[in-house]
């Protein structure tokens, strides 16, 4: 973790530098013809959703490593990934309906992306709940939830896909004009940096806590 320890301040500075001009870039981006200013949520919503997705992947992979290899560092990554998935997922779930209300005239639509995102968000909330309230051995139980949650994604996606999809698809992104592409790409990088920084800080916190527990226990011995 020493490399990560040295990286964290650099990452934090880079994240701050990226976020500082982002509001001005987004302000400067042209208004979209039909949606107007509401469209600017997109610069926030999509990067947050991407970060939530990354958190889910980190949690799923790390949970599997912890479950079958009993790697404690993997457990710290899994917990941090789950927390970030819930945090960024919440941003996604709040900003999405704000946009939808204007675009579709409704707050919520049971379409495939929205439903999948909601179900996955609930899976990671349940990961944190079992971790918090499960008592001794809850690391293992939450790891099962992480692994099952990861295996669940295609099933939720396919099963919800039978309903009509009205969410804009990812091929919106390449069709953006350069004036919108710039702030969008900038936001994506800023969020990814923020995600990485938070992940490393959180993992380091968890690792330090485990070290403290070990030291405490060793002293008792």
């Amino acid at each position, binding site marked *: 973790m020493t490399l990560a320890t040295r990286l964290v301040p650099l990452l934090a500075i880079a994240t701050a530098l990226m976020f500082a001009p982002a509001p001005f870039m987004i302000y400067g981006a042209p208004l979209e013809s039909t949606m107007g200013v509401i469209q600017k949520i997109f610069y926030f919503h999509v990067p947050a959703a991407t970060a939530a997705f990354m958190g889910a992947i980190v949690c799923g992979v790390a949970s599997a490593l912890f479950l079958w290899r009993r790697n404690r560092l993997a457990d710290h990554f899994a917990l941090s990934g789950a927390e970030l998935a819930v945090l960024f997922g919440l941003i996604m779930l709040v900003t999405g309906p704000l946009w939808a209300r204007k675009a579709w005239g409704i707050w919520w639509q049971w379409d495939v992306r929205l439903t999948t995102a909601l179900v996955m968000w609930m899976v990671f909330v349940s990961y944190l709940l079992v971790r918090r309230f499960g008592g*001794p051995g809850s690391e293992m139980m939450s790891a099962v939830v992480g692994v099952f949650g990861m295996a669940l994604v295609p099933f939720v996606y396919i099963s919800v896909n039978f309903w009509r999809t009205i969410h804009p698809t990812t091929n919106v992104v390449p069709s953006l004009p350069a004036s919108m592409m710039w702030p969008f790409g900038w936001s994506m990088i800023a969020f990814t940096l923020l995600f990485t920084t938070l992940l490393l800080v959180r993992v380091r916190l968890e690792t330090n806590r485990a070290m403290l*527990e070990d030291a*405490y*226990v060793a002293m*008792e*011995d």
Partner: protein
Amino acid sequence: MPSQATLDFDNVHLREASRHYGRRRALARTSLTFGRGEIVGLFGPNGAGKSTMLGLLSTTLHPTTGSVLFGDRPAADLGDDLRHRIGVLGHDLFLYGDLTARENLRFFGQLYELPNLDARVQVALDEARLVERADDRVSGYSRGLRQRLALERALLHDPRLVLLDEPFTGLDDDSAGFLAARLRRLRASGAIVLMATHDFDNAAGLVDRMVCLRNGRAREVAVDGRALRDRYRATMAEEWP
């Protein structure tokens, strides 16, 4: 049971074994060896680590650090078959209340793949002095009857290592006498017997070794002519690290 013949051990070792639950220390760096033909008494207040030590030896708990060796091999190398050689009488008795005594014994006997099961079950019912009530549901038994049945359930597969958590609970003097005699026979047959108990009267004259536990630490106390209770009090009054 081809594996059983090969899988045997003459002693069990705890090597610097610790077990923690978060910050709570249940057992701290304990090294002890138990051999065949011994009855070892584990004494200590509630939460001192008696059950944790039994859990480690029964392979249901893994040590946080250190190891548990059966003969000279760790439990992980020996696989699921190791449990053919371990018998556990838990504090909660491990019996199905809605099954009869005979059904309980038969069910576990089948899981352990015992040959001549019917005959073995009959012998076990005899030992527990439950022949007349063998076909009554266990939920209707008194604590003492259940305790006797649970012991025979734990011993049904002739385990090498016998782990008993409070075996004298709920037994009247008569039954306690039978239990002590049963444990002496086990010792004579070459079993390694560990017993966690608070009952000094029944343990007196029965245990060959005495291990006192406090706060996750174990200390062996020589068994000589003196009363166990006095030895225990004296040990507990000493300075512990």
